């Protein structure tokens, strides 16, 4: 497993993606799966930035490959519990006029990976996504 911490800002995404890219290259993660993991990492990271506003510490990203499974785990420190995995489902059948931007991140994560889990312990919010490759 490798991990790093990133400034809680959208501007940190370039650094986040540089970190994931190095992991993908070392672990031989296929190109299509890289896009899926970058999507999940960005959505969770930006949710932490947007909704855990009182937090001041950097956000931790840990990546691990075990066999054909890749896991990304993001942790936000010293925050209130906020489980984005309980967000209500998005009605994707609505017409454009009735749709509002936002809310798609978790909906899409659920479609793209095999498992999404939330854990809150000692002031730490942790979301883990897991996907089998291939």
């Amino acid at each position, binding site marked *: 497993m490798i991990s790093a911490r990133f400034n809680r800002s959208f501007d940190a995404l370039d650094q986040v993606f540089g970190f994931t890219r190095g992991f993908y290259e070392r672990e031989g993660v296929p190109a299509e799966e890289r896009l899926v993991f970058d999507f999940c990492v960005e959505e969770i990271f930006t949710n932490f930035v947007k909704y855990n506003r009182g937090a001041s510490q950097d956000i931790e990203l840990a990546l691990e490959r075990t066999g054909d499974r890749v896991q990304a785990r993001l942790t936000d420190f010293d925050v209130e519990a906020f489980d984005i995995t309980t967000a209500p489902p998005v009605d994707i059948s609505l017409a*454009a006029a009735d749709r509002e931007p936002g809310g798609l991140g978790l909906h899409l994560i659920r479609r793209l990976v095999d498992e999404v889990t939330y854990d809150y312990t000692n002031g730490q919010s942790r979301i883990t996504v897991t996907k089998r490759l291939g």
Partner: protein
Amino acid sequence: MFEIRLGEKGEVICEGRLDAAQAAKAQAFLDALPAPDVVDMTKLEYISSAGLGVLLRTQKRLLQSGGGLRLKNASRHIRDIFRYSGFDRIFQIDDGT
């Protein structure tokens, strides 16, 4: 890296990665166009929900005046994202084939 510009035929060309850090740039570009119609995504590698929000806001604006965006040449991954988002119901999506 993300770039958005107009092509020779007036189409909007998106290149690179449209993530949350780039969404404001894309929104400002599209908002400045009175009636964009085609968005060429041949070189768009990646889009996140922030980018989807840019497209949706633009589509809602254009539909009010009888227009609408046609999303052209998106990759398979991005077309999957559009389908899972229900965007295939609210945009014309052309894979170029």
